């Protein structure tokens, strides 16, 4: 399990990535997909995932479809064109961020010196 501070900034990117790989998903499916893909290292709480889904919908990145399942309604989320662009941007930004962090935490000689001062 990673700390919530570490996960916090990545939830939007994770959701956008999942939805760009899958045509449409519902809330529970997204949480399970993240848990399964990370072998339980990342388990999102309700407060981490649903507010973000609703924010992304309000800002036009996601669109929803309702479908009747048994005796209840299910809300499916999918990316809009705008959401698709945002997903690509976010993934690119995240990959760049990871590369930066890697080079930073690899502790190159010069940096190591700085950190020990």
């Amino acid at each position: 399990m990673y700390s919530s501070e570490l996960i916090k900034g990545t939830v939007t990117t994770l959701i956008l990535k999942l939805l760009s790989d899958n045509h449409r998903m519902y809330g529970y499916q997204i949480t399970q997909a993240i848990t399964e893909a990370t072998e339980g290292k990342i388990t999102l709480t309700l407060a981490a995932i649903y507010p973000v889904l609703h924010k992304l919908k309000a800002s036009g990145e996601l669109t929803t479809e309702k479908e009747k399942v048994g005796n209840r309604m299910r809300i499916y989320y999918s990316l809009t064109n705008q959401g698709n662009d945002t997903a690509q941007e976010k993934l690119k930004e995240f990959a760049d961020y990871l590369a930066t962090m890697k080079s930073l935490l690899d502790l190159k000689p010069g940096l190591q010196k700085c950190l020990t001062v």
Partner: protein
Amino acid sequence: MPDGVTQLTKSQISIIRARLKQDGIKTTELAEDLLDHFCVAIEEKMVEGQTFNAALENTFGSLQEDELKATEMKTQELLEGKKTYYPNLLQSFGLLLMTFAISWVASKGVQAISVGIEDLEMRKQWFEQNYLLIIVFSVVPIVGIPIGYTIWRKRQTQINLPIFSFRTVPAYVYGVMLLIGFLSIFWLEPLAVFFPFFQQRREAELLILENFDPLIVVFVIVGLMILLELLFRGVILRGLLMTMTSTKAIFWSSLFYALMMYPYFASMFFFSLLSGWIYWKTRSLYPSIFFIIAIQFVSYATFHFLGYSGKLYFQATLWNYVDHNLLIYLPLVIGSLLLTVGLLYYLNRKLSVESQS
């Protein structure tokens, strides 16, 4: 996913829905999302052999402390709180006082301008003729505050959300609301008949309106009604709905609205309750604005039909029209009230069904 293997019954789903509400979930779409989430989680446990009650308790028990409350708060914060202005009860009252204050200052301004008119009667008349315009221009800055705040927040957060909630609603909603407005004239009339206090003021207002070009009257009334709906439904009721139950929010916003519309307090309170209710059901300002404007014109049209033509306003009532015959009057009042209740029941059911599909 084990969809379809075990399906919860309607009563089991109702138990989960009630539990979510009890634990603090208020936002409609979030509640729908979470209901499905919990149903799937519970169904999975039932497939493993647990009873419904055990699965229910285990699923809710696996949550962190106040996780549902946190989800609700964070959703509201992300959707509304950081981007749009929403007043609580005290701030709503503050907005009302500000409207009164600006209205008072505006009226003093008009008085100051009219000092140039020599004749005292002319000055009085000029002032009376500008009465509606004063109200319109005092409401404009008040409505401007939340709009300005929202635009400012939007620029900061870069998230596009509408300032006011305008959603398209089915055409029958307008038809039913128009009918309800028309019927309310009959069942609200006893108030005007038995409270002379309302009559004098309305009579004066009608005389003032007659000094205007009818087009200006229509423009000012429509403009004023739209502005007041933006303020009382679009800002105040929307804000109150986030901090209290829908019943309380509609009641308080209607009370403030009726105070603003004094001396038509009683009738405007009822109209405001209806307007607030339809806003809450549809989350759209279209039907509430339509209803409030329609009621004005239906009401004036009815009074003209009942024989108002320069004579005392309060004589133009259905009560006089039927020659004080209770055998005709009472069934009309009670019948219109019952029909209104029936229409509201119909609309409530139809809108509830639609929100689920």
